[in-house]
């Protein structure tokens, strides 16, 4: 089933367009990398704040609200560039261990960010104890770090 889907991906027009182009992969990958810096900033400034670092004079709520549009915007760019990158080499991804680690961590990171982390950062700072904020941030940082590190490692394998 899964392998069938990957084989189908290999036959899409997007795959052919990128695979046959000299520049397409490099350009899409560069945009993916630019969005990495953006999403990194958007995630870090909030998680750092929950850990008591960075913009400590502002409330977690305020920092999170400022970061939110950048988080969503850069995530959209990440997906919009990441999907074509995947489509350009689905077979390589299918046999890549880091790819599956990344996808698992990504699903968890997105689910976590828009449920638990969102609920904690949207609440009044006084509603949760500092330890809850710290744990929320550490889980977020671990998940997103795994996504980034495994993502980089796809390029080294195979």
């Amino acid at each position: 089933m899964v392998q069938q889907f990957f084989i189908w991906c290999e036959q899409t027009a997007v795959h052919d367009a990128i695979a046959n182009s000299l520049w397409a992969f490099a350009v899409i990958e560069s945009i993916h990398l630019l969005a990495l810096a953006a999403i990194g900033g958007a995630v870090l400034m909030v998680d750092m704040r929950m850990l008591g670092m960075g913009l400590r004079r502002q409330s977690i709520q305020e920092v999170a609200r400022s970061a939110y549009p950048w988080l969503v915007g850069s995530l959209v760019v990440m997906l919009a560039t990441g999907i074509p990158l995947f489509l350009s080499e689905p077979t390589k991804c299918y046999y890549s261990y880091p790819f599956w680690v990344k996808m698992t961590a990504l699903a968890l990171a997105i689910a976590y960010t828009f449920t638990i982390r969102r609920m904690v950062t949207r609440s009044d700072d006084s509603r949760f104890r500092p330890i809850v904020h710290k744990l929320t941030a550490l889980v977020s940082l671990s998940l997103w770090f795994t996504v980034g590190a495994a993502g980089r490692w796809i390029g080294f394998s195979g």
Partner: protein
Amino acid sequence: MSAFAQWLAATSGSIALHESLYMYPLVESIHVLTLCVFVGLASVLDLRLMGITLKRVPVSEVARRLLPWMIGGFTVMVITGSMLFYAIPIRSYHSLWFRLKMIMLVLAGLNAWVFHARVWRSVTTWDLDPVTPKPARLAGAASLVLWACIIVTGRMIAYNWFDCDKPQSSFVVWAAGCDAYPKR
């Protein structure tokens, strides 16, 4: 400089790093992921300078709280970046993209220096303004654009389109210094 790169490439440390199975990818991964810390947080400051985000937070507050992290991230980027150059010195030195990246880095440094020496002096008069004066907005925008260019040109170093070991246009031969590239 080319002779220096060739000397560097012959050192045992360079060869070890170049041929290592895990060390080189590890250093490169740290280099890439530290982008989130350095460029990610620098972008927050740039966007505040442009009056786009955190408008209610004083500019000096954003700068003071984030600067230590940016300096830390930048230090890691320089150390890992130097190691990447050390691992592949000749090809990097004669890479068009690497040269563009270095020029862009110098420009980003100049922009930061001019901003600090000129614009930042009067920060107390506009610290609380949601939309900062034009020179500050310009410095923020220039920084964003330059770092984006540094990321892109940095990524492009990996591609061999303009490498000296194959026929290139006279412009690339000149810009990448291919005449000094060691013949095999």
